[in-house]
């Protein structure tokens, strides 16, 4: 295999795939790019066996072929080369040669025959969405993904697509995010799936520009396509917990707060809170919320008041300050609304006004006060 291309085009194409390459793997071939040349079309693939990503670029091809490029060395060399035409050659013995203006580097590589089979894109009706919208949805929900490997379903993002809506749900059992978006139309089958968090992060990375992203849903995989780049991910098997059943429908105590004021107050309280439990306490009355914090172990305490509007019973409720800050960060409106039930049941956190076509709802579970 022989081809020539500019440093910048090569670097940006390979760079896109770099996050897929595992840093450590019992299978050394996975730490390589799979590179295939057919005429002028160079196809580059990376996989960690769960997620695979492929991109294409045009080069001046000289001799078709297929080879593995050692990912880290190759990419770092590319980065350090000036933006000049680079000649790349893969010898039959597997060695990769980069030549550019008197610079010549020769890299050892693995046998291309050992590279695993990579799944291909199943052509189903895609859902088309703006890149910025997908990125936004992912960034709003990713914080609540669980790390409990004994409950693998919670370590992914629940994704549900229907004719009208794309919905993501994440939860770690302590808080939950549900974000829905009324898209412009989808003709494929309605499907529910659980997408690994790492795949969602990579999908968000693909959404860096203006323009759309296409999503292909099947019952075994989800694919994302932006321009010449396609990412395909396996899904997490199993049933996602019945999140709808835990979203309270009768939380009658409605608390509205200035977002900035409340956020700043909780941030200050968090500093003084116990480093482990991060516990704060909200004493909610008709026109103000008192935020109390006490770290018995370190002997620190604090309190402050934030004005609010509140329709409901006076309430004393404990929270993990980090959880509160996490949800407040997702609010884009000037005020935030908390619909509370009891001091031991889930509270709903929402913006005062939803973005167009969007529906964001978060749940936060309190800490029982002793």
């Amino acid at each position, binding site marked *: 295999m022989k081809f020539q291309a500019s440093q910048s085009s090569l670097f940006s194409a390979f760079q896109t795939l770099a996050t897929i390459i595992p840093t450590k793997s019992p299978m050394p071939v996975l730490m390589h790019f799979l590179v295939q040349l057919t005429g002028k079309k160079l196809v580059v693939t990376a996989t960690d066996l769960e997620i695979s990503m492929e991109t294409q670029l045009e080069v001046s091809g000289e001799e078709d072929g297929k080879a593995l490029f050692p990912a880290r060395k190759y990419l770092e060399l590319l980065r350090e080369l000036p933006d000049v035409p680079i000649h790349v050659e893969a010898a039959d013995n597997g060695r990769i040669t980069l030549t550019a203006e008197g610079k010549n580097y020769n890299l050892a590589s693995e046998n291309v025959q050992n590279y695993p089979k990579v799944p291909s894109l199943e052509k189903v009706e895609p859902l088309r969405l703006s890149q910025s919208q997908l990125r936004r949805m992912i960034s709003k929900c990713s914080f609540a993904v669980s*790390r409990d490997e*004994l409950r693998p379903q919670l370590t992914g993002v629940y994704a549900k697509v229907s004719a009208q809506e794309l919905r993501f749900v994440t939860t770690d059992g302590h808080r939950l995010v549900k974000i829905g978006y009324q898209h412009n139309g989808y003709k494929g089958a309605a499907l529910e799936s659980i997408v690994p968090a790492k795949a969602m992060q990579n999908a968000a990375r693909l959404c860096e520009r203006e323009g759309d992203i296409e999503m292909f849903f099947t019952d075994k995989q989800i694919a994302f396509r932006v321009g010449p780049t396609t990412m395909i991910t396996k899904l997490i098997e199993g049933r996602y917990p019945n999140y709808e059943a835990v979203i309270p429908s009768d939380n009658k105590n409605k608390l509205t707060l200035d977002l900035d004021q409340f956020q700043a107050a909780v941030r200050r309280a968090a500093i003084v809170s*116990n480093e*482990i439990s991060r516990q704060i306490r909200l004493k909610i009355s008709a026109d103000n919320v008192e935020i109390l914090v006490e770290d018995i172990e*370190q002997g620190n305490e604090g309190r402050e008041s934030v004005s609010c509007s509140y329709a409901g019973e006076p309430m004393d409720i404990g929270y993990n300050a980090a959880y509160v800050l996490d949800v407040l960060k997702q609010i884009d409106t000037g005020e935030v609304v908390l619909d509370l039930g009891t001091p031991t049941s889930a509270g709903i956190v929402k913006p005062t006004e939803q973005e167009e076509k969007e529906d964001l709802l978060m749940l936060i579970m309190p*800490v029982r006060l002793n």
Partner: protein
Amino acid sequence: MTSVASSERNSLPKIRILAENVVNQIAAGEVVERAASVLKELVENSLDAGATRVQIVLKGSGRSLIQVVDDGCGMSRDDLLLAFERHATSKLARAEDLQTVKTLGFRGEALPSIASVSFIEVRSAATGAASGTLLRLEAGRIAHDEPIASNAGTSMAVHSLFFNTPARARFLKSAATELAHLIRIFKQYALAYPEIAWTLTHDDALEYNLPPADLSTRLNDLFGAGFSDKTASLQFEAGGVVVSGVVGLPELNKKSRGNQYLFLNCRPVQSALLHSAVRSALRELLEEGEWPFYAVFLEIAPSELDVNVHPAKLEVKFADEQRVHGALYRAIRSVLTERFVQDSRLAVLPSDAAERSSENPSVAVPQRSDLFSRQTVASSGDMSPLTSGARAPDALSSEQGLLRPAIFQVHGKHLIAQIQSGIAIVDQHAAHERVLFEKAIRSFDERSFHAQQLLFPMLLELDPEMDALFVEVRDDLAKLGFQIRDFGQRTYSVEAVPAGLRRVSESGMIRAMLEEYREFRRARFEPLEALAAGFACHAAIRAGDLLTADEMTALMNELFATRFPLTCPHGRPTVIHVTLSELDRRFKRTE
């Protein structure tokens, strides 16, 4: 029928006399193992006689002479003669209460046994008697018997021990070893009876002169001035077991045994069970191969134990071992305070590294080393200015653009921090276990864990064995912040978990804790400690968990705020301290 009687009535068949001598010599082999056993028997006799002064005179490490002189109730001639008859204990004559095993000697085989392998000279006068008796015995036979003028009390001198049993004599160790055994016996009784005045003379040199005192003065008199300051007093009573005495601070730990004194109803005893109770109670303060100092007194109703197991009366058996173990264990745990830590190991971790860095700015001393300054902070809130102290230099270094990480994580499992005297290497899992363990223990009283409510209750189905364990600990789990609902048929719903746990698999938690709990119970942990240890073991961060700088700082802070920062609940070390001199030595820089 006996040797004493037969010596007066020579007409008795010879064969019976011989048999009795043989019996005594055989018995002597069992009871009189060495000079120290003789001393023990004589001292016990003096104590049983109600002595307030006991003088011990030794010569030739006991081979030439073991003499015990007391001011006790003494013996009449008849009693004295009886005393040298096997199984006819002279003390039966003294009082009715001697029929219990509260006296030290009771088998009545000691004196005849000793007499059979030595020359004995006894002078004794009973309280109130007009005169006393002098008796000389040679290999158990009365050689001399005359009335003498004497004050009340007894003087028993044993000469030429084992003169007629060369085999036994050969088994005696060096003079130094034999003397050490004698001294140990002396120390045991001197500790058990501080209210009695004791002297000990060896080869005409006065080795000990102990006036009547309390236990702590006696400790100082025996082991050196200030010794008792390095101990903690025990005072505990539970379930009919009274525990008193002292345990030594870690600085008294030794690499060899010999400073463990255990007394049961004032009788020196050996008990693997009780020793293990002391050891496990002190586990955080003992390093591999170390022995603690202790002088522990247990009082238990005689009906609860069987001391008549071995003629030397050292081994005891208890009716309820677990109860005695538990009482002793708790007695010691309850006095372990931060004092133990403060006075010992942590002193090697310096507190002034930060100061030093300002004195000598060219030396890159990490700002965080002042973490170690808070060696002891009572859980309730002795608030040293640690937090501000730890943060301020950080801000400084970032202003200067000097990114000097204070603590490094290596291999995802060890934290390395520079301290003034060298390097501290912390095992992150063990350290976090220690933190969580102590917090859990506190939580049983104070409920310091809050309950994080769960959106999705987790179902827990237990097999009968696990369920039995679960029922045992269920109420205590609630104190840790778990909220569990019973669905019947060994099925439960976990609706809340302890708040603030990081990187924990909540779903597997209770089952894993129960398994740990079972193991810790088998290792004789008390129930609450077993549960706390099981909890800590499972909830602690693991090897492989990457920590942020804040998390590392928090962990170090919390670790050094615990009572026993240097070991995890299993007793394994949390911190390895490598000194600069050690490093220099390894780099062959030693001058």
